[in-house]
């Protein structure tokens, strides 16, 4: 530590915080830097294919909710590059902590589509992930999953496993205490955690500038002495490369990384929300769709490289729709969800007090309460 005197002192107004973001693929579909073989043609196609699949899935889910076949749903259309790009950068054994809006990430990491349908139909079975995968149930409380992700990463590190943990969260979560606790702890123990923030500008209805005086979310990493990176969240290459680097860093023992992906949800916060009440929905949504859509951008590049055409897309769409329908059928064949099921997976062995609550709940439903 050095001391400095008055004439070396910086004024209070001097600031070094930058709001710039990292971009690899421009809005016009041009590469701004060489990919150095880190992303080849087949990976590009794979990225596009996954984004297309999750977009169809998302639209289908909104429709199902509007037809009364599914409960409230949180759409993610517009955020595909952030979710697909980040999930593709993981290894199959990495831990994933998604929120209720991160189904695209979960699907790419190996979750079955029908499980997600089941989740929104009210089945606890919707939270089960395939054998060998480490995809946690979607987290509905805000920011609580971040400390969990620090825990699993710390455990992996202590066990000497080469697995990282990624926590997904939104801009709203960064105002919660858990966000700061997680960053602090991860910084101290240098856990291989990726804090992946999708900053879509709104915590439900609260725009970021009304939520915090911080210029960026990434800048907060500085307080915990961990890297904070701002990327274009609608640029799947930028997201993929940064998350990949963060994972590698973490596994080398260099600690956590905070990544702020700038993106936008085209739709409502959930199907029970009306964005027209708090923002100029039509203009904003149209502007992002036209200028920064993650799929359109990659499609332009693929077309320039001669590896995409409309026929291929049509083929994909047909296959994907069929795949989604099959999963939907499977989900709809499940017996109706039983509310008492919610007590079942809290502990490996049910303690007496939870059992009591379950019994109480069961007898409540037995009374067959008629709601007129």
């Amino acid at each position: 530590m050095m001391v400095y005197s008055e004439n070396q002192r910086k004024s209070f107004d001097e600031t070094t915080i930058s709001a710039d973001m990292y971009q690899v693929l421009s809005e016009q579909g041009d590469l701004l830097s060489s990919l150095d073989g880190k992303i080849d043609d087949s990976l590009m196609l794979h990225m596009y294919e996954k984004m297309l699949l999750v977009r169809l899935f998302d639209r289908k889910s909104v429709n199902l909710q509007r037809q009364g076949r599914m409960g409230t749903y949180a759409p993610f259309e517009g955020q595909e590059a952030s979710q697909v790009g980040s999930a593709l950068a993981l290894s199959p054994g990495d831990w994933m902590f998604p929120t209720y809006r991160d189904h695209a990430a979960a699907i790419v990491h190996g979750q079955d589509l029908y499980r997600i349908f089941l989740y929104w139909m009210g089945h606890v079975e919707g939270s089960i992930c395939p054998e060998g995968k480490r995809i946690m149930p979607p987290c509905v409380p805000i920011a609580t999953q971040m400390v969990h992700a620090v825990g699993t990463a710390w455990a992996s590190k202590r066990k000497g496993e080469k697995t990282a943990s990624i926590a997904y969260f939104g801009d709203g979560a960064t105002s919660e205490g858990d966000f700061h606790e997680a960053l602090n702890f991860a910084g101290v123990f240098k856990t291989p955690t990726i804090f992946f923030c999708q900053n879509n500008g709104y915590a439900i209805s609260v725009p970021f500038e009304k939520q915090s005086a911080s210029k960026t979310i990434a800048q907060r990493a500085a307080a915990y002495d961990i890297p904070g990176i701002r990327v274009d969240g609608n640029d799947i290459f930028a997201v993929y490369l940064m998350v990949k680097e963060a994972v590698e860093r973490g596994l080398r023992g260099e600690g956590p990384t905070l990544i702020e992906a700038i993106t936008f949800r085209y739709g409502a916060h959930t199907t029970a929300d009306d964005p027209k009440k708090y923002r100029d929905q039509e203009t904003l949504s149209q502007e992002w769709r036209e200028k920064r859509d993650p799929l359109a951008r990659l499609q332009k590049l693929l077309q320039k490289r001669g590896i995409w055409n409309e026929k291929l897309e049509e083929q994909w769409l047909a296959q994907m729709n069929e795949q989604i329908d099959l999963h939907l059928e499977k989900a709809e064949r499940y017996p109706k969800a039983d509310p008492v099921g919610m007590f079942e997976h809290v502990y490996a062995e049910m303690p007496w007090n939870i059992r009591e609550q379950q019994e109480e709940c069961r007898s409540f439903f037995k009374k067959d309460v008629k709601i007129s």
Partner: protein
Amino acid sequence: MVEFKLPDVGEGMHEGEITRWLVKEGDFVTRDQPVVEVQTDKVNAELTSPATGVVNKMFFAVGDTVEVGATLYVIQPEGEEEKKPAAVPPAAPRQARALATPYVRQMAREMSIDLDDVAGTGPAGRVVESDLIQYAERKKAGPTPDNRPKEQEAKTEAASVKPLLLGESEERIPLKGIRKKIAEHLTKSATIIPHVTHVDELEMDAVKEWRDRIKEYADRKNIKLTFLPFFIKAIVIALKEFPTLNASIDDETNEIVLKHYYHIGIATDTEDGLIVPVIKHADQKTILELAAEISQLSFLAREGKLTLDQISGGTFTISNVGPIGGLQATPIINHPEVAILALHKMEPRMVVRNWEGVIRLMMNMSLSFDHRLIDGVTAVRFTNRIKELLENPNLLFAELR
């Protein structure tokens, strides 16, 4: 046959209002195609079709309020032949259960009336409160076959008898949309705020002369110059001197909020009802800037293109009913504001000046104010100040920023 029942699209909603049908009966729809638009207290949702086929029947009209679970329409799925027996109307939803609000259901239970026995006169055959009362009265009159008609008979009878009920004919229009919002808002304002209205008149000759002199200049700039900008200027100057009129009461914290910004709402008549576009920071704008903004906002209001930002955040409202006519009024304050000024018709009137009768261009203004916060004397001083500034535009000129 696939029946489409109104789902709970808004997390715990009980009913929704049909705002738009996107198809007609007999139309072919594909799966996931939007069919009907429903407005609930939370969302405005387009509901999509669960199947591909022909929309056979729609059970509700635009404007109907429908309970969750009621069948909205029926689809004959593609490839599924219409079976003969099914041609007989497949259990129409309102035959399954009479339509009524939870309130009316409760009332029916208390009166021990079976809703299915009552002929509904509300939208889509809905049983309303008055139907129950009439039914109960008829029942009391004695159980003769005549006054216990079956539902269908009652309906046709009511239809044919109605025109004969001279002098008691009425029409029932559902209170909805903007009209409902206005109703709720005004009820709130009138219930919370103890209103007092104070009326005064002012002489407009001087300000008219002033306006006429710069009108040509404004015309050249393509700006329509009315008297309203002069009023806004005078009001803002007066508001700065009487801060309690540009304030609100925070009922939760028990605080008076004095606002140091001057956002003036202008009550504007549109086809859909009253809308109040707001001129932000009126104190920092020139008379011509105000005039231009008024034209623009009223144009947007009539086109229905105002954004939420343009109709919220007002601190004081002007209701300019002058062009229509009238002497005085008791305007209702736009809660949470604490005062509203109505401007009335400007006309030549006989007045007394220096003990002589002369003709002057006179105008009345009515100020309603929140008596919790503003004393009568303050209100009178406030309008006196407006009067002083407008009757002597030179003073107004001296105070302009």
